[in-house]
């Protein structure tokens, strides 16, 4: 019987797929059969291996986490409107995952016996459920949006590939297979190969691979006169063919070709000759894959002789980044590789510029990357923030020395601009006399910041203190670092000011966990990912590492990792922050690539449910770290 509870349930369900595709009357019918379940935080809904329930579940309130027991891995977090526990709908066996209440939750249990017949003839519903079922077993950090089937995502195995960059790119192969049967005449085959511009043709029988004929066969067996072009394919084809599964890394493919002395690998569904051929992989395909490889790019950048050349190579870097994100390669690794490549580009610009100066540098100098580039968190193009330090010279020589380095700085920043780095609107660049100083000049500047910290000083130091050496003399930098830690030790109040600044970022969520969006301006109703989520973590990491007198680490997640080491009592929070900063940067980068902007402002209605949950999960760490900073640096006393 319909009653006010079933109306409530139907009202809720109709907002979410697949129920949004179910006619109102049917949904009402289903709703009367639904049970409402309350789960305390931390309680179990079902365990792996447990016999399936006669229901599947929709989260009404709260959040449910799905765990793979043997991997100890959280696979997904379901919140309002998400469905889980679909196994009994698909298969009559036990659950494969654990479902735990991440928060106090209210669930709607949809009885399968009722739901199945009602949804049976609704293909939209069935498709959605099948896809959800598949995606529930998928890693939540996978790059593919929800609704993708498991088989479509390439799984990256971090343990196996952590050392070799070449390895982890899966091969791309020719999917438009050109095949022929074994009784086809060789002349016809050769014509087909020419027409399709392919170096090999697969001979199949009932779609199963039987043999292969390559350019080499035509040369060795036909051109030499051993066989006539009027003969059948069977007379010259290599058989049996060597087959591999399609999920093959570049390295594995190379090994396969070397081992068998062949130039083409046939890829089949399961890697044996008993399943359908799905592609042919040639040495040429591998060469192409390698072209999209960091080692190859580095070599090319280092060989480049002009800014234009570097600019076009940077396009390759962006493609690589896109590929990495798509393949779900760990963010720390991706950021490192991209940062290294950016580094190489900048170094090459500096090298080229130095060659074009009329004279060599009068004294040793160092080129520093500041801000996000210094933190190695710059994946997409953003502004250039940099500085140049040169060794101390006698006062009389200072003007000429500085003007030499200023000229160098101007040329280098122009070069960086040419390859795609925008000029810093605040002028924080080595072309500015303020940021092109001697070591002693910087020492004075830094001392002034630390001993007399106004808002402007705090802002400048927060950008400057994330420096890292890109080019030049490392000793200059270590002297600079020493000076910073020494000065902070004598003026600890500076840290409180830095801490206060770190807490200034506005909160990402409101009381009811809703996202807070910008109220006015150009980005009204957009979520400011940088200001509300990334900056609080970056600022927190900086002030905490400075307070521990750690120098030489400017990357946010590395800073948090280091902090976790030296303050084991807070390790859990620091590691969560380390993870959150990685996740957020990845998020920003993906958004940026998708919309071709900096990825900073996000339109919430374009996010999937899953993306929202992922974002929200990082906010917990932000709140935690801000509380820690507030108490540790007694920020409230400053106000």
């Amino acid at each position, binding site marked *: 019987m319909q009653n006010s*509870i079933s109306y409530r349930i139907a009202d809720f369900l109709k907002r979410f797929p697949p129920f949004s595709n179910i006619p109102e009357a049917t949904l009402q019918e289903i709703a009367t059969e639904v049970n409402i379940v*309350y789960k305390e935080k931390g309680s179990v809904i079902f365990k792996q291996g447990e016999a399936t329930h006669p229901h599947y579940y929709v989260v009404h309130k709260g959040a449910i986490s799905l765990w793979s027991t043997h991997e100890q891995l959280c696979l997904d977090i379901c919140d309002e409107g998400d469905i889980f526990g679909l196994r009994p709908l698909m298969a009559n066996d036990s659950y494969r995952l654990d479902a735990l209440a991440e928060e106090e939750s209210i669930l709607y249990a949809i009885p399968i016996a009722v739901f199945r017949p009602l949804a049976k003839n609704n293909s939209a519903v069935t498709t959605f459920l099948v896809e959800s079922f598949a995606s529930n077993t998928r890693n939540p950090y996978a790059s593919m949006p929800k609704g993708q089937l498991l088989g479509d995502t390439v799984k990256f195995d971090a343990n196996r590939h952590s050392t070799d960059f070449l390895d982890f790119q899966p091969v791309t192969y020719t999917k438009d297979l050109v095949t022929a049967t074994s009784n086809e005449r060789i002349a016809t085959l050769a014509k087909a190969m020419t027409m399709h511009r392919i170096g090999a043709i697969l001979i199949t029988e009932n779609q199963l691979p039987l043999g292969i004929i390559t350019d080499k066969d035509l040369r060795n067996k036909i051109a030499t006169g051993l066989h006539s072009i009027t003969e059948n394919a069977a007379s010259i084809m290599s058989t049996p063919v060597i087959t591999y599964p399609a999920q093959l890394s570049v390295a594995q493919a190379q090994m396969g070709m070397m081992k068998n002395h062949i130039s083409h690998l046939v890829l089949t569904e399961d890697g044996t000759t008993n399943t359908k051929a799905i592609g042919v992989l040639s040495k040429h395909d591998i060469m192409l894959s390698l072209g999209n490889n960091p080692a190859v790019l580095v070599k090319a950048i280092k060989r480049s002789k002009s800014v234009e050349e570097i600019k076009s190579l940077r396009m390759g870097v962006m493609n690589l980044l896109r590929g990495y994100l798509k393949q779900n390669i760990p963010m720390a690794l991706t950021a490192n590789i991209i940062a290294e490549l950016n580094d190489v580009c900048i170094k090459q610009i500096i090298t080229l510029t130095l060659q074009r100066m009329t004279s060599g540098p009068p004294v040793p100098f160092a080129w520093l990357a500041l801000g996000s580039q210094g933190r190695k968190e710059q994946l997409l193009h953003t502004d250039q923030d940099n500085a140049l330090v040169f060794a101390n010279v006698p006062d009389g020589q200072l003007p000429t020395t500085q003007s030499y380095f200023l000229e160098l700085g101007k040329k280098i920043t122009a070069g960086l601009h040419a390859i795609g780095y925008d000029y810093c609107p605040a002028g924080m660049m080595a072309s500015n006399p303020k940021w092109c100083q001697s070591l002693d000049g910087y020492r004075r500047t830094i001392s002034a910041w630390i001993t007399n910290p106004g808002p402007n000083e705090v802002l400048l130091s927060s950008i400057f203190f994330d420096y890292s050496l890109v080019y030049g003399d490392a000793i200059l930098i270590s002297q600079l670092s020493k000076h910073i830690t020494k000065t902070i030790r004598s003026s600890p109040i500076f840290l409180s000011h830095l801490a206060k600044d770190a807490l200034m970022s506005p909160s990402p969520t409101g009381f009811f966990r809703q996202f807070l969006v910008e109220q006015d301006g150009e980005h009204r109703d957009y979520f400011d990912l940088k200001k509300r989520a990334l900056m609080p973590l970056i600022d927190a990491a900086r002030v905490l590492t400075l307070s521990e007198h750690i120098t030489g680490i400017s990357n946010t997640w590395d800073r948090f990792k280091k902090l976790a080491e030296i303050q084991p009592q807070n390790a859990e929070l620091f590691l969560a922050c380390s993870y959150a900063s990685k996740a957020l940067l990845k998020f920003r980068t993906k958004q940026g690539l998708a919309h071709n902007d900096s990825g900073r402002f996000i339109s919430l209605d374009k996010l999937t449910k899953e993306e929202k949950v992922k974002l929200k999960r990082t906010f917990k760490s932000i709140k935690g770290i801000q509380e820690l900073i507030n108490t540790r640096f007694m920020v409230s006393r400053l106000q």
Partner: protein
Amino acid sequence: MMTKTKKELPAFWKAYAASFKNGLSQDLSKVSLVVLDTETTGLNLKKDRILSIGALRIENGQILTKEAFELFLEQEKFNAQTVSIHGIRKTSAVQKIAELEGLKKVLTILENAILVAHHVGFDTGMLNTSLKRHGLPKLKNKTLDTSVLFHRSLPRSQQKANSHYTLDELAAFFNISTSDRHTALGDAYITAIAFWHIIGKLKPTSTKELLKKGRFFSWPISF
């Protein structure tokens, strides 16, 4: 006299009484609960009458939507002032049943479950007076009051001195939609969800402990 009355008790009451032969399990997850709400013509236990009853049963930690019901009772008494609250007019289109039929349905769903209501003393009081009108004994169920339980779940600093909380306050506190407030089943539902949230905070280890915490204060006359 007593024995005579007992003999006259109808079969549905006997079945109800028989369900109490087995005591309550001390394992809270195994105890059945019935969450109930009544809409009445007013707040006077003697003069006013029940207009509708909403009830739902919680079994194994689940509300069984199908078993939940809302009844509208035929009553001679009518109070125009409360119509604006519950929206039940004297002659409205909803199907009404006789009071005794309604009581019978309530007893059937109740059995020996723990009866949960917001200000449970009022609901049991109303039910008991109407049972009495039909020559039936009082309800035998253990009861829990969500107002009292809520009071006990709050830190002392946040407790109200008069320990009186409205269902709207609970709904706001636990962020429960009040779209169907002031329908008997709608209120019963809000009460049930609030009850769950309170249990989540109180974390009682046994049925006995929960009953102790939810023992209602005497019904305030001033209410």
